[in-house]
């Protein structure tokens, strides 16, 4: 094989690989835009809702959820009027307490972190009604990382100490991760 034909073969190979790369790029950059979600989306499909100004992903939960997550943080307090109670007594959630959600969203995970090993039950409440609970088993970190709990625009999100078995929760923080939901 001559040096020229070897060189030409190399050039052809590079040209073919570049062509493949361009084709891959063209296929992957196709993020659709619009004001109405496409019918029959595929898992992981992305779509930018131009009327909302946000990108959504067809989630494994079968919902269009924002690709950007938000966190609501709640901290404990000796007073029921602020945060949630830490005083070793069950707390009754109030329908008029909590974060008023500015948009429909889905809670995809939440956790509670405490300074010391704690027991009891943490409740996630919607408009004063418990919709999910997290049982604490004498550790400093308790969590659920794959939840699917819908809230609607205007609902109140609140966490409460539903019950305790011993002691008082010390330095507790609850983080509730949500993704905006649209349809």
């Amino acid at each position, binding site marked *: 094989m001559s040096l020229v034909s070897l060189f030409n073969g190399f050039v052809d190979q590079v040209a073919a690989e570049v062509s493949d790369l361009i084709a891959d790029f063209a296929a992957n950059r196709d993020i659709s835009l619009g004001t109405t979600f496409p019918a029959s989306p595929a898992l992981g499909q992305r779509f930018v809702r131009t009327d909302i100004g946000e990108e959504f992903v067809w989630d494994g939960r079968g919902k269009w959820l924002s*690709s*950007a*997550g938000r*966190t609501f*943080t709640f*901290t*404990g*307090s*000796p007073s029921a009027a*602020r*945060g949630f109670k*830490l005083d070793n007594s069950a707390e009754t959630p109030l329908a008029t307490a909590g974060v008023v959600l500015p948009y429909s969203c889905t809670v995809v*995970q939440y*956790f509670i*972190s*405490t*300074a*010391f090993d704690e027991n009891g039950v943490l409740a996630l409440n919607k408009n004063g009604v418990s919709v999910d609970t997290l049982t604490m088993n004498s550790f*400093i*970190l308790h*969590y659920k*990382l794959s939840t699917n709990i819908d809230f609607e625009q205007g609902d109140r999100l609140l966490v409460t100490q539903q019950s305790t078995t011993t002691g*008082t929760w*010390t*330095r*507790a*923080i609850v*983080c509730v*991760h949500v993704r905006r939901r649209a349809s």
Partner: protein
Amino acid sequence: MLWLSEDVYNLTFVASGTQGASPFLVGDVQEPLMVPYFGVRAVGWFVDTVATTGQLSLAIGATTPDDQLNRPSGSRFGLAIAGAFAQEIAVLAPSTDFTAAGRQIASVFYRRS
């Protein structure tokens, strides 16, 4: 190089001035708080306090300060703080806050890694 989450997570500490209720570490007597991800990278934080003197410290993965902000308010973003065991995030207050911290807020932004 690390794989970092697209999401920026947030952990907000609110100190009420009552020992035990404060999520700040004061006087090195309590443990830092944990997040359920084995690996985090702090990208920014801000503080806002009633107290006007002293500093708050941010500690990732341990109780050794990684960054400080002066009270009463300040912010810093563009950080890339990761610890060897970076599942723990703490905000440290001066030891003089042990009995009366006053109202203080510190908010930490981080990505999973």
